[in-house]
C-alpha cells in the first residue's frame, strides 16, 4: 500500500463501497498504474479502458432501450409502439415466467403467472403479434430469455421470414446466457451440459446466418441483483463469457467469426465510481483475454460492448419518488462508464410493473443526461482520475483472483455445478443485509429518514383476465394448425437432440413454422436432455 495519508478528522460512517470495498480518504498520483499510458491508453485503442470507440458519445449517443413486456403479445405490442413514439431507439422484450421456464400458458405450473412479469409467448403467432407493425429490419430488438433462447430466436426468425425479412437483416440481441441462470437468475429447462450445447448451437448458427445479431448477451445484471458485489459481478460475468468462447473454439469456430457479436449486460448500482471502475476493468480484461489467450486478430473481437440497466435492487418501496434520483445516479454511472445502451428503471418498480407515466420519467432521465447534463460532450471524462484508475486496477486484480479460484475448481461449468458462485453471492447478499439491518449502512427512507405517512402510489395491476385471453389465443393456435405437421417437426427435433453433434437450430425453425408451442418444443428436448433441479444452498 502507498503512504498513509495524514490523520484526518472523519465522520462515524462506513467508508466502503456498496460492495464493501474499503475506500481511502484521498487518492493521488501514487495510486495510478505503473505505466499509465499502457494501462489507460486512449478510447478506441487497446486495451480499451477508456471506451471501445474513439469518438464515443460525440459520434453517437447510447441506445435508449427500455425493457418492457406484460400481458399478451397485444398489450406488449402497444407498449412497444408507445416507447418508439416517445423517442426510444431500440426495443427490449421481457418475457413472463412461464415463457422463461419453457411452460406453455395452459400448463398447470403457469397458473397465476401468465403475462405477470413479462409478455406471454407460446407460439410463432404470439411473436408475430408482438412485433406487428414494427419494422424489424430497422429497429434493433433485444430478447431477455435464456434456457429457451434458441426456441424464441426460431420464432422471431420465422416471424420475420413470413414478412419477407431474411435473418441476415435482423439486428438485435438474445440473452442466451445460461450460466448466469444457474448462478443467479434461476430460470432453467435442462441440465447444464445440454444447455451449454444449445448456446453453442445458437452461436454457431448466428455466425453463419445473422451477421447483425448478438447471439449471447453475457449478463452480470442478474448476478448483481442476486446480491453479488461489483467484483463478483465482473468476475463471474467475464468468466461466463470466456467459457462460451472456449466452447465455441472447441467446436471448431474461428474466434473472429463469432467474438465480434458477443455483447455484455451489466448492472449499474448506486455506488457511482465503483460502477465506472467495473466497466473500465471489464473492457480491459476482455480485450486482453481475447487477444492473448484466444489469439483474436480482428479488433472487433476485443471490444467489450455492453448494455446497462440500473439496479432494480437499489430501489425502495418506501418514498418511491426517491428512486428517480437513485436511477439518475446509476444511469450516470453507465454513461460515464461508456455503455452502448441503457435501460433506466421506473420509480415504482419496487412495488409492481411500471405504469406508463413512470416509464416515461425513466426514459426522460436518459434524455436529460444525454441532452442537458453535458456529460456526453467529451469522451471518458473520468479517465485519468486517481481514484477511478486505482479502483479500476483493484477491480481487475480481484477479478483475476476469482478466475484463479474458478480454474482450480475445473472451470466455470464445474464451479457452477458445485455451487461456488451461488454460495459467494449468497454470502455477499447476507453481509449487505446485515449492514443495513444494523444501521451501519443507511438506505434513505428504509432505515433512515422514514416518512410514516407515505401516500400509497397508483400502481399497474395486471388484469387477471389476460391469462384467460392468452389461454384462448393458444387454444385457437392449437386448433388451427396441422397436427401431423407439428408431430413430424417435434419428432425430427427429438431425433436431432439425441445426436450431440447436430446443430438444433434448423429443426427448431421447422418447429416454429409448424406452430409448435414453446412447451412442446422444450418437452421434446427434455426427452433427450432431462430436466434440472438445483441443490439449494443458503
Amino acid at each position, binding site marked *: 500500500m502507498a503512504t498513509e495519508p495524514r490523520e484526518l478528522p472523519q465522520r462515524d460512517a462506513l467508508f466502503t463501497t456498496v460492495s464493501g470495498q474499503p475506500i481511502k480518504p484521498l487518492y493521488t498520483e501514487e495510486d495510478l498504474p505503473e505505466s499509465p499510458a499502457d494501462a489507460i491508453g486512449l478510447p478506441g485503442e487497446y486495451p480499451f479502458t477508456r471506451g471501445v470507440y474513439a469518438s464515443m458519445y460525440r459520434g453517437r449517443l447510447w441506445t435508449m432501450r427500455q425493457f418492457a413486456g406484460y400481458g399478451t403479445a397485444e398489450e406488449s405490442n402497444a407498449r412497444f409502439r408507445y416507447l418508439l413514439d416517445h423517442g426510444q431507439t431500440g426495443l427490449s422484450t421481457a418475457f413472463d415466467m*412461464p415463457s422463461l421456464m419453457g411452460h406453455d400458458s395452459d400448463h398447470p405450473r403457469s397458473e397465476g403467472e401468465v403475462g405477470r412479469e413479462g409478455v406471454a409467448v407460446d407460439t410463432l403467432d404470439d411473436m408475430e403479434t408482438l412485433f406487428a407493425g414494427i419494422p424489424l429490419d430497422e429497429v434493433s430488438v433485444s430478447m431477455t430469455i435464456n434456457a429457451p433462447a434458441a426456441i424464441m430466436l426460431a420464432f422471431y426468425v420465422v416471424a420475420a421470414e413470413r414478412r419477407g425479412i431474411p435473418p441476415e437483416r435482423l439486428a438485435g440481441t438474445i440473452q442466451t446466457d445460461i450460466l448466469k441462470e444457474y448462478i443467479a437468475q434461476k430460470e432453467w429447462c435442462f441440465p447444464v451440459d445440454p444447455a451449454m450445447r444449445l448456446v453453442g448451437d445458437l452461436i454457431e448458427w448466428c455466425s453463419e446466418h445473422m451477421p447483425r445479431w448478438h447471439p449471447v448477451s453475457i449478463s452480470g445484471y442478474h448476478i448483481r441483483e442476486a446480491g453479488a458485489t461489483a467484483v463478483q459481478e465482473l468476475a463471474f460475468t467475464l468468466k461466463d463469457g470466456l467459457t462460451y468462447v472456449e466452447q465455441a473454439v472447441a467446436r471448431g469456430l474461428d474466434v473472429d467469426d463469432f467474438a465480434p457479436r458477443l455483447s455484455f449486460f451489466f448492472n449499474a448500482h448506486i455506488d457511482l465510481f465503483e460502477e465506472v471502475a467495473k466497466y473500465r476493468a471489464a473492457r480491459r480484461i476482455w480485450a486482453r483475454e481475447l487477444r492473448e489467450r484466444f489469439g483474436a486478430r480482428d479488433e472487433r473481437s476485443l471490444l467489450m460492448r455492453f448494455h446497462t440497466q440500473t439496479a432494480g435492487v437499489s430501489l425502495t418501496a418506501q418514498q418511491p419518488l426517491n428512486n428517480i434520483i437513485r436511477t439518475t445516479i446509476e444511469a450516470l454511472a453507465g454513461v460515464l462508464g461508456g455503455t452502448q445502451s441503457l435501460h433506466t428503471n421506473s420509480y415504482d418498480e419496487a412495488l409492481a410493473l411500471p405504469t406508463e407515466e413512470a416509464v416515461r420519467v425513466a426514459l426522460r432521465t436518459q434524455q436529460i443526461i444525454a441532452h442537458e447534463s453535458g456529460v456526453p460532450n467529451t469522451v471518458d471524462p473520468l479517465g485519468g482520475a486517481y481514484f477511478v484508475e486505482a479502483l479500476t486496477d483493484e477491480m481487475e486484480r480481484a477479478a483475476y483472483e476469482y478466475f484463479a479460484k474458478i480454474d482450480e475448481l475445473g472451470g466455470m461449468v464445474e464451479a457452477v455445478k458445485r455451487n461456488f458462485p451461488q454460495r459467494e453471492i449468497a454470502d455477499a*447478499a*447476507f453481509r449487505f443485509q446485515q449492514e443495513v439491518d444494523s444501521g451501519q449502512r443507511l438506505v434513505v427512507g428504509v*432505515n433512515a429518514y422514514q416518512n410514516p405517512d407515505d401516500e400509497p402510489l397508483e400502481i399497474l395491476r395486471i388484469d387477471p383476465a389476460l391469462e384467460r385471453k392468452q389461454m384462448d389465443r393458444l387454444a385457437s393456435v392449437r386448433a388451427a394448425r396441422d397436427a401431423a405437421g407439428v408431430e413430424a417437426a417435434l419428432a425430427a427435433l427429438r431425433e436431432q437432440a439425441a445426436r450431440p453433434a447436430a446443430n438444433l437450430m434448423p429443426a427448431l425453425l421447422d418447429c416454429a413454422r409448424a406452430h409448435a408451442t414453446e412447451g412442446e418444443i422444450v418437452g421434446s428436448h427434455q426427452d433427450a436432455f432431462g430436466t434440472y433441479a438445483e*441443490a439449494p444452498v*443458503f
Partner: protein
Amino acid sequence: MEASASQRKIRVVVAKPGLDGHDRGAKIIARALRDAGMEVIYTGLHQTPEQIVATVVQEDADAVGISILSGAHMTLIPRIMELLAGEGIDDVVVTVGGTIPAEDIEELKRQGVAEVFTPGASTQDSVDFIRRAVGERRAPAVQGD
C-alpha cells in the same frame, strides 16, 4: 408432550413457490432464522403449493415463510392455505415475504396468513415475529426460546 414441544427448537420451512428465480430474500431470511437458533428447511425454487405443504407436514414445521416475487401470490398462497386446511393444519404460522400490494395483504391476512413482510423489512422483524407467533401458538405460558 406439551413441554417438549414448546422447548424444542422452532422449525421453519422457508418456501419458494412460483416460477420466478428471485431467491435472494428467501436465502437471507433462511440464514437469519438459522442464526437466530431455529431449524430451517429451505425448499429451493419453483415449488408447487402441494410440494410446499408436503414439506410442512413432513418436517412437522412450526412456521412456514413463503417468499414470492412472481406476481402469482393471489393464486398460489390461497392454494397453500387451502391445502394446509385440508391437512387439518391450523397451528402453523404462515408468513409471506415479497412485493405484495397493500390490498392483497389484507386479503391474505383474511385467509389466515399471520404476517406479510414487504421490501425494506428487516430480517430481525421476521425473526422476532416468528419467534413470538410460534411461542403464542405453543403453550401460552412458555414464551421466548
